[in-house]
């Protein structure tokens, strides 16, 4: 793989990187409360993912359309309120699906309105560095990236804390209850970040080696 191919590769993966190796949660530690505390099982993780998609994408579009027409200091107080209004149908939907689920998610479903992930997306969108479509797509990739991490953490914690996945029994007789507590969320996320860094290093090493082989030929 020569320089041109490497550039092409980076251009192709530029947006998708936000989902995997350059995931905003894994790389920058955004939206930590949801991953650390709320993502204790698959149901919670799916609910949080839906809520974040429903909130971030419309708010990013609004932020893009409004741009810098509103002073930034005032805009930072307005967008979370819009996000909070968008979360009302999500809360009603969850309550209708399972009232206990809304209660167990507690404040965390509402906290999405002020999450660092949302605020950073608003910053990107209102700066208008890309076209509307590309900016929206970027928000979507970020949401998918968030969902991947939150669902992964939710599954791991549910398996070891309750011995189930999405409520289905796995036949594990020694559930470790402490895993669903906040401290384990911090520790698990720390290890996930380290593993992702290691994968990124291996990935880059392989790319460089392939590039050298291509140049030798």
């Amino acid at each position, binding site marked *: 793989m020569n320089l041109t191919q490497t550039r092409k590769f980076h251009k192709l993966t530029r947006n998708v990187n936000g989902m995997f190796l350059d995931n905003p949660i894994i790389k920058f*530690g955004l939206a930590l409360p949801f991953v650390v505390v709320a993502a204790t099982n698959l149901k919670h993780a799916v609910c949080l993912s839906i809520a974040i998609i429903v909130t971030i994408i419309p708010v990013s579009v609004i932020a893009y359309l409004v741009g810098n027409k509103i002073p930034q200091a005032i805009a930072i107080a307005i967008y*979370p309120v819009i996000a909070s209004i968008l979360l009302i149908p999500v809360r009603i939907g969850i309550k209708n699906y399972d009232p206990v689920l809304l209660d167990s998610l507690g404040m965390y479903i509402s906290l999405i309105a002020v999450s660092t992930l949302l605020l950073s997306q608003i910053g990107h969108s209102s700066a208008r560095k890309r076209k509307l479509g590309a900016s929206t797509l970027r928000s979507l990739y970020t949401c998918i990236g968030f969902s991947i991490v939150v669902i992964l953490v939710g599954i791991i914690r549910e398996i070891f804390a309750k011995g189930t996945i999405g409520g289905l029994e796995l036949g594990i007789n020694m559930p470790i209850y402490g895993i669903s507590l906040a401290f384990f969320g911090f520790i698990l996320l720390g290890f996930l970040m380290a593993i992702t860094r290691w994968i990124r290093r291996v990935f880059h090493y392989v790319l460089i080696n392939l590039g050298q082989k291509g140049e030798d030929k």
Partner: protein
Amino acid sequence: MIVFQYISLILSGILVENIFFTRALDAGNMIDLVNEPRKILDFSVTFTVATTVSSILCAIVDKFTTNLEYVVYIRPTIYLLVISLVYVIIYYILRNNSKANLDKYKNLLSYACINSGVYGVLFVNQRYEHNILESGFYGVSAGLGMFLALLIILSAKKKLAYSNVPKIMKGLPILLIYIGLLSLGIFGLFGHPLPA
């Protein structure tokens, strides 16, 4: 006796139910922000003012809205409106007093007022059914708890920067593991999971 109740409430907010270590509230912002003691002090003072004033205002609002139908769905929006109002008021006070100070603290002000920490404290007050005075006290203690958490993180960051840890663990991963172990220690104080 009532004095002890308030002391217990303050201790709970600072240590036992520290919003950073037990609920990870505002963990994302904090870790980035912490790099010097002066900044921590400025941030904590603003954060404490925001939590205290918002807590008192929301306790008053709660008194009038408790019996409303569907309040459970609109309460978060009402809380956020109150936080936004508090932020805008602080912003304009700062702007009218000193333009130089506003330029200096503009970013810090938005970080300190509109975040999951301030918002989360309001939900904790509502969950524990605190009255107006208790809400105010809890707001102050949450701010002090955040100050303590920030000092601990600053010290941890400095120590870990010179520690011999594997390269892939340097920075945020090892810091999160460190915070996790501290959180585990604090969990021992209350001994049961907190309501979300």
